């Protein structure tokens, strides 16, 4: 199953995704890994952790729907947007 690499920024705790050349705040800018390169990317994230950019990196599963990646778990849908009960907060607030 395709995967996306995510973490939180060390200082502000914001959810970020690996975008290919750096960490990006939006899920739709995330790089989609379709094979073993996902694990390689996760190992690479350790450097960013050491540098103090991000914390707690991990991979999560997505499926491709109409050419777009969609997180398999609700957890990642909520992380990508913000609390469903406060749509004025988080990334969904714009």
């Amino acid at each position, binding site marked *: 199953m395709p995967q996306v690499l995510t973490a939180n920024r060390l200082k*502000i705790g914001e959810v970020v995704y690996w975008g290919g050349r750096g960490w990006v705040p939006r899920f739709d800018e995330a790089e989609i890994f379709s094979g073993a390169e996902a694990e390689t990317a996760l190992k690479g994230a350790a450097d960013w952790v*050491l540098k103090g950019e991000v914390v707690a990196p991990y991979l999560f599963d997505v499926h491709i729907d109409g050419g777009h990646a969609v997180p398999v778990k609700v957890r990642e849908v909520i992380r990508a947007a913000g609390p*469903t009960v406060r749509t004025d907060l988080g990334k969904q607030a714009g």
Partner: protein
Amino acid sequence: MYRYDEFDAQFVHERAEQFRGQVARRIAGELTEDEFKPLRLMNGLYLQLHSYMLRIAIPYGTLSARQLRKLGEIARKYDHSYGHFTTRQNLQLHWSQLPQVPDMLLDLAKVEMHCIQTSGNSVRNISADPFAGAAAGEIEDPRILSEILRQWSTLHPEFSFLPRKFKICVIASDEDRAALLIHDIAVKVVRNESGEIGYRVYVGGGLGRTPYLAQEIGPFVPKADILAFCEAVLRVYNEAGRRDNIHKARIKILVHQIGLEEMRRRVEAEFAEIKKTGTLALPAEEIARIAAYFAPPAFETLPAECPEFEVAKRKNRGFADWVKTNVHPHKIPGYAIATISLKPIGKTPGDCSSDQMEALADIMDAFGQTEIRVTHEQNLVLPHMRISDLFALWQKLVPLDLATANHGLVTDIIACPGLDYCDLANARSIPIAQAIAKRFSDLDRQHDLGELKIKISGCINACGHHHVGHIGILGVDRKGVENYQILLGGSGAEDASLAEIMGPGFDTEGIVDAVENVIGTYTKMRKSGERFLDTYRRIGPAPFKERLYAR
């Protein structure tokens, strides 16, 4: 209430500055996340889904107007202008930023507050009856012992690295408004046959994946010996509690594994040893010194009846409805206890905005209320209101959306933050609470259903107390989709019991129908005057299951 002495004040201030240094070292890369995480947790700082969450201790759920105003100010200055009152009588700010946390701690220190021991394997915030000092029938203010235990357990050198977290609760009435028996140590202030006041101690309660109610281990511990007794319990637990498996590390598992009798034998042996040294004997003067901090306010001599109050109720249906559920008898004639519901229909249970906190602080000043209490049911309480002031209070609460007349009713739902915020959660809790509240919003229907406690947790850790809900709801992850199990027959009150799971779970829409279905069984089967819980206990789970899973 308790006031810091110069040592308390200096310590809390220095602790904030110490954390500033730790944060700076973390940001500079001198500390790894593994090294830093225990340090931030020691200051109540968690990394959650969207941001850092700061958990602020509210000892025994008591706040002054000055403290409440400051919490509102801190939430506005550093966060998104709201906080979330929890089932442990604490406040959580969900959008904290690491570099600002030391300043948040310093601002908290200005009003004698902190986040120490709100996380980690330590003795957590001591909880107590939110009606302390006001309830009719109370033996003495349970916060006197709570404060003594708070001082004893704060930075206790022997108990700073327990096998797992440890929660203590104190009540002093036969009515249990603090979910006493779900705590690791539960203390009830009692009077023995000769009229002496002492403590009945229970041990080994807790929820989570293995729920147990605490069992009596000390039927009557004299006042002077309570610290020695608690020290004995903690020492036995610290030595024998499992450390190899986080899920089996709470004292409830130890009590269950060795049995209550063996636990009692070990605690009594340790208790005898500690008593020999005499170092933990609590002098009457020290108890009196702490008790003075909780001296009742200067109550006026007032008539028990208040004609203006009766007139206001007759003329105003909304006020009468609010009084019916949210006002409770006070021990002093002419006074009443007012519960401020943080459960407006369709809103997040326990959330309170900065504007509301500051307005409430002003209201406290206007009505001479020196304290407000946080309840484990995620509401607030003004404990010493003059009955003659209740109508004016209600009029001020209405425009603030703080006058919802639902205390103890079906819409007064406990819900943990769930998957909307929490890193541990498997499913959302808040939207389920909101949907149920909307479904049952009709107040006449709520009154017809009577006392009905719904409690919702978004994972097995049970912060939403689903095991002790009349109706408990547990959110789980089923193949990536939120699914909700329903449990019935629990109680966190003086008639405590653990709820039983009914069967397969429901999806997000189905769970609201399932609750309605269960309530339908109750209304069909109830006898006159029976609460939901009474009917369930009389007829058992079968009729509920049958209707719930009928094809």
